[in-house]
């Protein structure tokens, strides 16, 4: 994954939070982490396919997820229910949708988002890619976005889907 390909995703996360949630973000430096060392509680995953392929994962501790989704719907949420799951799925869908239009000249489609809760899983990257993870801080809490992405499409198309192994 070319490092500059992370920028549209960082910009999309920032725009989504500022425009939809009126929440300013502070982003940290992207890091290349092969395996999650600090597993979040809720993760929204979505696949990108077309002339570029990738996976976007929005990783939220429970408290951040409650605050973010609560702000989205204008309610105070105290526990993880279907609203949280739907909200995280919708949020990763919006972030990926907003990011894909920033790749000029590409035609990219999104998969349906998947939301996983719990800490025992392994997020598989696409072949020949690595995960780049960007941490964010905000008044709603800390969270991270991980992206693996490749703009070059091989002659034999690789099916892109949100791949999560649980165990």
């Amino acid at each position, binding site marked *: 994954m070319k490092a500059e390909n992370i920028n549209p995703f960082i910009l999309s996360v920032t725009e989504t939070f500022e425009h939809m949630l009126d929440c300013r973000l502070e982003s940290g430096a992207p890091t290349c982490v092969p395996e999650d060392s600090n597993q979040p509680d809720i993760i929204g995953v979505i696949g990108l396919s077309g002339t570029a392929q990738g996976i976007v994962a929005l990783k939220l501790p429970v408290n951040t997820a409650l605050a973010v*989704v609560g702000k989205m719907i204008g309610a105070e949420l105290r526990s993880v229910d279907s609203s949280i799951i739907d*909200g995280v799925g919708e949020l990763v869908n919006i972030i990926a*949708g*907003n990011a894909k239009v920033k790749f000029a000249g590409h035609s990219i489609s999104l998969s349906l988002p998947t939301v996983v809760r719990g800490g025992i899983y392994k997020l598989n990257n696409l072949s020949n890619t690595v995960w780049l993870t960007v941490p964010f801080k905000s008044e709603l809490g800390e969270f991270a976005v991980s992206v693996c992405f490749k703009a070059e499409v091989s002659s034999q198309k690789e099916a892109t889907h949100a791949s999560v192994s649980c165990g």
Partner: protein
Amino acid sequence: MQVLVVDDSQIMRKIITGALKKLGVNDILEASNGQEAVEMLGKPSDIGLVLMDWNMPTMTGIEAVKKLRSDNVSIPVVMVTTEAEKEKVMEAIKSGANDYLIKPFNPKDIQGKLEKFLPALKG
């Protein structure tokens, strides 16, 4: 005047209806796919504006718009979607959508569409 919110995501319907209520619109109907919306709009109603998602099961938003226009239903439809590419916007307008609202949006964006299509609600 009623506003019909069409989205398969319950949370997105909550977000939009919440924004509408903040803007003083309390008469809101909801549908979870294009087919439901077409059926609701085929009956006599006070619906004056439709806020329509694009990607939905059973019948997509764009299929619903095409069906409505072929049935001579002329109620304004605003597509509310992440499909922000110029080609997609053109496809929606050619299919009969009146306007476009790209996610992420905020209540001010919705207010702009209300003022454009339901000026009677203003003030």
